[in-house]
């Protein structure tokens, strides 16, 4: 049986009188691709932000490898091997593609002071080149990230999440705004990351086809609550899910 990497226990997040996430619990197993779906405004991104320390949860716990990591800062979560991408593009436009990747990995090399006196690239150029090849961005390595197309920036954004060799990557709407060709490419690369390198994923996505193809298990949220959990086929047949998406 696969090991549990992360346990999310009863996460609740309130903004004043509004409960954005209402007692959501699930676990993430090592090596799986878990999808989190739900209609707009159901609390998916807020849940991500609570898990990753971007927002403090009002209640609940996040356990990583049995350790309570609730409320740790995002940089600390990253150093514990949990990486993420964002719903909106988050690359560094003035840095080249290679520098974006080196930056994404450098904080994991030594301490702040040893990095200052170490090599300029923190010894990460070979890793960055490998990642560039893996995501087929070779012809763009020296280009400034701000000059890439939206789809190429999405690929770079995903590649950056892998630079530090994370144990788990949380992808927030990776398919959003990406054309079909680029989406196929992204899907294939994520699948390869999962099968070849054993990366664990949690994916928030609106694109149902993408989620159903990619994910091994799916959690469904509606109005901040978990309403279903299971394999893609089980979730597709679940009446509560159909109601949440199509209305009563």
């Amino acid at each position: 049986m696969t090991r549990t990497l992360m346990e999310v226990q009863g996460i609740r997040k309130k903004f004043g009188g509004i409960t954005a996430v209402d007692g959501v619990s699930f676990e993430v197993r090592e090596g799986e691709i878990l999808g989190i779906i739900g209609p707009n405004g159901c609390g998916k991104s807020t849940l991500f932000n609570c898990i990753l320390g971007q927002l403090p949860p009002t209640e609940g716990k996040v356990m990583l490898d049995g350790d309570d990591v609730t409320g740790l800062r995002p940089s600390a979560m990253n150093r514990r091997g949990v990486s993420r991408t964002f719903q909106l593009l988050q690359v560094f436009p003035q840095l080249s593609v290679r520098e974006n990747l080196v930056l994404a990995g450098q904080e994991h090399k030594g301490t702040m002071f040893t990095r200052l006196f170490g090599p300029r690239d923190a010894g990460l150029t070979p890793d960055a080149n490998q990642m560039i090849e893996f995501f087929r961005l070779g012809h763009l390595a020296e280009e400034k990230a701000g000059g890439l197309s939206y789809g190429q920036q999405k690929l770079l954004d995903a590649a950056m999440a892998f630079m530090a060799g994370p144990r788990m990557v949380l992808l927030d709407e990776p398919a959003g705004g990406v054309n079909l060709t680029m989406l196929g490419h992204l899907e294939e690369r994520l699948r390869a990351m999962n099968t070849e390198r054993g990366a664990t994923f949690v994916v928030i996505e609106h694109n149902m086809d993408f989620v159903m193809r990619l994910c091994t298990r799916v959690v469904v949220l509606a109005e901040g609550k978990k309403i279903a959990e299971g394999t893609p086929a089980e979730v597709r047949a679940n009446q509560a899910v159909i109601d949440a998406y199509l209305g009563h």
Partner: protein
Amino acid sequence: MSRSVLLKTFGVLIVGALIFLPLTLNRYGIYIMSLWAIMTIAAMGLNLTLGYAGQVSLAQGAFVGLGAYTVAIMMSAGFGFWLPLLIAIVITFAVGWLLGYPALRVQHHYLAFVTLAFSTLVFLVFRNEEWLTKGIYGIMGFKRPSAFGVSFQKPIEFYYFTLGALALASAFMAWLVRSPWGRAFVALRENPVRALSLGVDTRRYTLMAFAIGSAMGGFSGALYAPLVEFVDPTPFTLALSLNLLMMVIVGGSGFFFGPFLGAAIGVLLPEWLRFAHGWYLTIYALFVMILLIKTPTGILGIIENMIAARKTRAASAARAAASAGLDKV
């Protein structure tokens, strides 16, 4: 001639001019060139805080003042130059670190107001704490430094001393901004949320950007005191901070050579315009206004945009040639 040879030739010419041109200048000309070198160091520090790390500061003039007063007070108390210089750098580093804390909570114009308040506070200390600073009467009676038997008393000797200090500060800054820290500073400026999610300790880097930038200001002030051989509060008002800010923005914020160019415009240009007599400051102000309207990214920003446009044209031409070739096939 390739671009790199052209740049190297240009660099050699500039360095040559900085070394030999002052030999032809009178005392005042040499003083202005020394002031340019000193203000470039201060602007370089602000460029790190603002241009690279994206943290607004209206307090750089106050750090120049802190450096100048530290050296003036200690030298007039009988210390030589080198220990006060070191103390000035350490003090401004520490105070800059503390000033960085508000930046962890507020940003942009709110941060500007916090640093503005600090700048005013420091000026008031310089003016009112007479027991330490001698208030409006200022501190005098200290000499320019010497090292290893070489004296820097004469204006031209002190100019070469400041030029050496500028070379040292430039080498340090070039090393810093090309290190992993430089990359982290840029990440802090461009997208702190993403930087945090990639493990960048944005708190520490913010504090470090303030501390190092302020220490550069302190270093600059420590050179300013022996240049004028008299320190009073007047040069260290908010106007100096605003002038340094202008130098960074006009030269090109976030560009390594921006402060050199900005300080040339801030220090040397008003002197070159003196032929216009009473109108020289008006012409200077109009020049700066037009420059900033036309080039909000500073002078080096225009050059970078021109290079980027040329690259885009070349890439488009290459694509067009490739598709024309395919059509023939």
